[in-house]
């Protein structure tokens, strides 16, 4: 036999690597996170509000992830003993978890459906839910076309580009929107989101309302066509637009740095996306009628003609119960939502996520809902 295994093993030698591994883990665990210690006393000076302690769990929209970072960081200065956890599981899953009672609030890129409003009654009692438009983000139409620094597009033109009926950058329709610009004979590669997303829903909603003749599909959170480049998430779209030439896509304005951003036709002029213009269009929109007293779900005014409003916006809501069973949860929720809609909170989100701070008129409405949050029943 060519192989003669020696089966005598030294026990000592096996212990060494295992011990080493254990020692390494323990050493790592022992040092602790440097930024977590001593946090507790940091914000104690703010004594206007009673100090709460506990945790608040939310889940939902991925669009709010960065903003939630800002809010939970800022809120820890107001209420240092409170931890706010947020799972960016997606709006749909967030709403489902909220309705099932798993989390205290949901973050959602679209308001509850009529069906869900009914379900919410059983979850929250007769006072129902509050829905607050806490996160507003302008969706920019971004493009990468060397030599073209400024681009203006009417709604019909955008719809035709994304539907695939305009195929070249020097198409007469684009040229008509951009008199005097030199447009190359490059093929257009429209980039859309491959994942189901609130951004797609808001963008298609805009197209279906602002360009009903060119865009025949209804608003949907999955892209309604089977052609075109697809990319995962806002960062994926930005990356794809950046890597290709002749590409055009839609992405949160805050993430569009380094790309060409198109001005959108509003009324008779063209408007560039900006936080102020995005917040303004929400102010001019209607609250959906026939829902709860504190249910501020908006029907966005996509067909606005005012030159200081930008109609392609994503509005993401915080959804929670007006009446909460648990006193601690109610107190923390009230304090947290109060912070979120405050100018400080909106500024924190703008800094962390580049969102558009809500206008005072919208805040005044939301404040009534926050004031109504109670514990009981």
């Amino acid at each position, binding site marked *: *036999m*060519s*192989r*003669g*295994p*020696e*089966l005598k*093993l*030294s026990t000592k*030698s*096996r212990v*060494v*690597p*295992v011990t*080493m*591994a254990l020692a390494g*883990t323990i050493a*790592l*665990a022992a*040092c*602790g*996170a*440097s*930024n*977590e210690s001593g*946090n507790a006393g940091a914000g104690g000076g703010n004594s206007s509000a009673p100090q709460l302690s506990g945790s608040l*769990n939310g*889940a939902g929209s*991925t669009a709010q*992830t*960065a903003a939630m*970072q*800002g809010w*939970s*960081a800022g809120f*820890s200065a107001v209420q240092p003993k409170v*931890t706010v*956890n947020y*799972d*960016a*599981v997606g709006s749909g899953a967030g709403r489902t*978890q909220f309705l*099932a*009672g*798993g*989390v205290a609030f949901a973050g959602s890129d679209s308001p509850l459906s009529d069906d869900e409003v009914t379900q919410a009654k059983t979850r929250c009692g007769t006072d129902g839910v509050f829905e607050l438009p806490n996160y507003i983000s302008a969706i920019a139409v971004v493009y990468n076309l060397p030599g073209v620094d400024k681009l203006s597009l009417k709604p019909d033109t955008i719809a035709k580009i994304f539907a695939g009926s305009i195929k070249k950058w020097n198409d007469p329709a684009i040229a008509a929107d951009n008199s005097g610009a030199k447009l190359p004979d490059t093929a257009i590669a429209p980039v859309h989101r491959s994942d189901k997303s609130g951004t797609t829903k808001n963008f298609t909603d805009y197209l279906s309302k602002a360009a009903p003749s060119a865009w025949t599909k209804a608003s949907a959170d999955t892209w309604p066509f089977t052609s075109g480049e697809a990319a*995962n*998430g*806002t*960062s*994926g779209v*930005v990356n794809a637009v950046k890597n290709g030439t002749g590409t055009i896509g839609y992405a949160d304005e*805050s*993430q569009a*740095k380094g790309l060409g951003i198109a001005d959108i036709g509003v009324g008779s002029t063209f408007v560039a996306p900006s936080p102020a213009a995005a917040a303004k269009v929400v102010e001019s929109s209607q609250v959906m009628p026939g829902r709860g007293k504190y249910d501020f779900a908006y029907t966005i005014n996509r067909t606005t003609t005012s030159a200081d409003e930008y109609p392609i916006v994503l509005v993401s809501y915080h959804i929670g119960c007006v009446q909460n069973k648990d006193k601690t949860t109610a107190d923390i929720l009230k304090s947290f939502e109060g912070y979120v809609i405050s100018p400080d909170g909106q500024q*924190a989100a703008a*800094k*962390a*996520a*580049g969102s558009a701070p809500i206008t005072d008129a919208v805040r005044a409405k939301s404040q009534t809902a926050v004031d109504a949050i109670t514990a009981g029943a």
Partner: protein
Amino acid sequence: MSQTSAPQAPAAPSPPPTSVQPRPRLPRWATAAAFAGAAVVAVLLGVLTALNLVTFVLYTAVVGTLALWAVSRRVEGRRKAKDRLVTSLVLGAFAVTLVPLLSLVYEVVRRGVARLDGEFFNSSMVGIIGPGGGAYHAILGTLIITGLTVVMSVPIGLLTAVYLVEYGTGRLKRAITFLVDVMTGIPSIVAGLFAYALFAIFFGPGVRLGIAGAVALSVLMIPVMVRSAEEVLKLVPNELREAAYALGVPKWRTIVKVVIPTAIAGLGTSVTLAIARVIGETAPLLVTVGITNATNLDPFDGRMATLPVFAYYQLTQPGVPPEFGIDRAWTAALVLIMLVMGLNLLARLISHFFAPKTGR
């Protein structure tokens, strides 16, 4: 060796016995010469077309291989020439493989090294906006959850493999083999949903526990563990078992003292591969463990951060401006690789110390 030891294929056609003299062989420098010549040809070809490093290497390899084959066929005969051709092909396959793999490692290191600093290892993401922050919480979370997964999966996987190879007979063996195959087909996200649904029964909806993530990962790891451990155990020669039985050693002691130690190096590889299968899993952890900014070391209480989820979120939700988040994502990927490398090294050490010395 048992009855099948001799290769069944007919012996290679030996050269006709008329000539006793061996065929002439190419000198040792022939290979080098062939490829040097090929390089010259490649430059000439390159002058005609566009020359860059890629085409140069490609031309050199192809021309050199063909030249060597042709010369060898003329001097050394058909069989030797084929041998040289295969040698070149195998070497070529190895070289081709290294390109993407090395570029991958290079890319991750290049992008990840920017944030590979002390802060990344000793701070979490509590209160971090913009620059700074780290993955201390995620590194520990990954270690804890993967550790739990290994503790659950390796014994089950190994014992099942032992059962299949050593004990199993008839229907149950066939059924388990079949079901392990089925189990390899569970998409990772489905495993996550399953674990979530399971824990939601006991802890209510919206539950997020480290242990649930470990269960989800175990569902993915067990079949991989069984399949590869089975493959390795099968390769232990029957002679060893028979020798042990002949000495009156009980079967279970034979397995523990002879079969497993003989296969320990392969089992080490199996475990490492199985860990590699799960340590980078993102989707199941997303739905079972969630993510948190703070450090949580208790897998039985609440959300934990893990490196892959951390990396995924930092890449897809980088915040404003995005650079800092993206840097953290690449560094997390780099740390994940380093972690796996460390585990791998550990497995190597273990199998080095455990494995019996063999002839190879």
